């Protein structure tokens, strides 16, 4: 009898205290933040700074441990995240392509829907560019040139066929009813030198006029621009009213089955981390604009990107 009573009492106590308890015992161990890229790059630098800042805002004084899992076009890190326990102790810091492009080819061991959006931190701006001394001065002249020379405008992307830059540019070409010629490159060093050397006429990448470079933008295909007054006069596709836009986001996602209260705890720690001096300092140094979004807004960005990419990839014959 006494035993049964004790059990009942314990059950009662659990039922009453369940909601706050569940939240407080998370995180119960260090959070593993997978970075699907090698150490030393921009994404890695941000992931580490945000992890350091966010652990100060986590309950139970738990740490966030950054683990680099590069390879397979960043899909290996995401595969590891989707195979981990859905208890919120494993998250992945990613960029757009492995989440909203790679799974659409149907070869990855995960789908976009297997992930729960947590926080978005910033976007990488991208534009259609020409060389600084090109005869094409602005957007109107560019449209005129490509319309009178169909298929002659060669543009390079750093990721090759089926990469984010390729899909975004073809989406714009379709919206404008123009014909461009894609030249694939591997890495932005070769892409940039090829444009500067005049082998190709344009690129889709982050311009570098603000750093004294010669990659001059014509139109931004992202809604954000680098925070430098030199780009004030350059339009974005959104400003032009075009239905062609891409968001190269960077943020944190986790397993889709992570309980909502745990997602909220993680998200609020990451949101708070955005305000830390170290993270703000990185934004200034890399000349990026902070653009925080919570689970819902970030989730909507992801869904929208998947729908757009699927349409363009079908039209290009990249997927059925």
């Amino acid at each position: 009898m006494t035993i049964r009573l004790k059990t009942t009492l314990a059950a009662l106590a659990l039922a009453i205290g369940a909601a706050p308890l569940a939240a407080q015992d998370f995180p119960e161990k260090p959070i593993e933040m997978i970075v699907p890229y090698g150490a030393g790059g921009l994404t890695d630098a941000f992931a580490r700074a945000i992890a350091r800042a966010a652990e100060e805002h986590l309950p139970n004084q738990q740490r966030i441990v950054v683990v680099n899992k590069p390879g397979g076009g960043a899909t290996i890190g995401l595969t590891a995240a989707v195979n981990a326990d859905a208890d919120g102790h494993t998250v992945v810091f990613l960029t757009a392509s492995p989440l909203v492009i790679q799974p659409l080819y149907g070869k990855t061991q995960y789908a976009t829907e297997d992930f729960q959006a947590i926080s978005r931190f910033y976007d990488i701006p991208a534009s259609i560019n020409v060389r600084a001394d090109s005869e094409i001065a602005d957007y109107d002249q560019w449209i005129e040139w490509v319309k009178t020379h169909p298929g002659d405008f060669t543009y390079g992307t750093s990721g090759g066929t089926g990469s984010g830059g390729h899909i975004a540019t073809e989406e714009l070409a379709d919206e404008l009813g123009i014909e461009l010629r894609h030249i694939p490159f591997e890495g932005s060093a070769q892409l940039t030198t090829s444009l500067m050397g005049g082998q190709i006429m344009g690129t889709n990448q982050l311009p570098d006029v603000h750093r004294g470079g010669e990659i001059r933008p014509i139109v931004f295909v992202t809604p954000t621009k680098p925070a430098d007054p030199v780009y004030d006069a350059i339009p974005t596709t959104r400003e032009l009213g075009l239905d062609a836009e891409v968001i190269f986001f960077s943020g944190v996602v986790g397993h889709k089955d992570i309980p909502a209260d745990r997602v909220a705890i993680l998200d609020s720690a990451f949101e708070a981390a955005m305000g830390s001096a170290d993270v703000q300092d990185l934004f200034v140094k890399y000349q990026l604009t902070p653009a925080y979004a919570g689970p819902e807004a970030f989730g909507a960005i992801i869904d929208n990107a998947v729908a757009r990419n699927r349409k363009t990839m079908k039209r290009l014959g990249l997927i059925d």
Partner: protein
Amino acid sequence: MDFLTNLDLIMLGSAALSIMLGLFVGMLFGALPGLGLIIGVTLLLPLSYAMSPVNSILMLLACYQGAEYGGSISAIVLGIPGTAMAAPIVLDGREMAKTESPGKALAYSLYGSTFGGIFGGLVLIFFAVPVARFALKLADPEFFLLGVVGLLAVATFGAKDFVKAVISVALGLLAGTVGLDLFTGSSRLTADFFELYEGLNLVAVAVGLFAFSEVFIMLSGRINKAFTFEAHHMKISLTFREMLGALKAMISGSAIGSFMGVLPGVGSTVSCWLAYSTAKATSSTPEKFGKGSGEGIAAPDAANNATVGGALLPFLALGIPGSASIAIIAGAFIIAGIQPGPQMMRNNPELIQTIFIGFMATTVGMFFMGKALTQVFVRALVTPNSFLVPAILISSLIGIYSSKGQFFDLWVALGLGIAAWIMRRLDYSIAAFVLAMVLTPIIEVSFRRALVLSQGDYSIFYTRIYSQVILVAIAVVLGFAVLKTVRRLRDARLAATTKEAVQ
């Protein structure tokens, strides 16, 4: 020279310490099979956050410089090149170390490295902008031709069996195509392993082909075998005469290295092999190549270290980081609050000047630290294999796993190691295989991209002026080789007939 007045002793001291630390880590990681430059730089990176911008950049550059030389130490002492690109150094370095004098072999390598480092540094300091501008004019047709020239270097390896060399090259070309195709986005020869989407991991390949196959050979031989040398053969120094003899090779190697280093993605791959075959083609004693020629060691080593200055050049002049290691160093610039770009030289002249001076200091420091450290490494030759084998295996396994964190790569290395061991027993050339494999991405991608750009018109490969220069160079080298062979045959026949006449 007003920056000299700004120098104080504490700053100088801390800079010297940073350089020494970078050199030490670089040399150590370069020399240990499997571990290499990228792992060394990545390891130093967190440390660099806590240092002053100049010191952190100098430390990372010193690590780069040190690792390029360190790779030659294991190539010569163990027959295991640190990277696939350092493979040519094994050809003569290992031979000289075994048969003649390990100290001399390492000295040729160290002198060559130092010469190349200084040469590359001077090009960087005095010609950064014009060279970077000129390099921009080279495009895919030229990269394709340079890749083909690199492939021709196979002919200079002195393969015993031509057919087997060709088979090695063909297998290497095939291995180089593994991964996602840039032009169609489809995967090739990946058997649905995501670990292969970015191609075979070069660290796993180098370890498997060189380290593992060497270990298997050690195991199948006498396990307690060790070489014995007299004390003076262990001394790392060259006589003035020997130095002079290798000077031509060092100059041509340095020139090739510092210019090739400028070309992003192409340079570091081709330069070492090109330096080796150029040195052989222009040598007065080409018959010594492959049998322990000092020139055959000094030329590729000079090229290796000259590429450091070369690779830094487009970054400092144009803000374009041309190699993976420079990209990591570029990160250190940004952390230090310096935006890499063409304006860097204008906006931060003191910093750039300090880096230039520090860069020269790293090469000089490398010489002395190399002399000291190599004394220790050369002991590996007189260490019995029963001690070497476990040490090599541990270092290799750690290196492969830490390069990407994939167990899969360990299997790749093991498979290639067994394959390479069999190939070596059957006299197939591992060097030819690796050369073809690392050149495939350059040759294939440049070839296809050039044709995409020209819309299928093959004339793009011979109508451009720079392509023509390379084509003429290829023709001259080939013609020279044919001429040499003809002359040798005629001399041989002449000797035979005079002999007959005497009899």
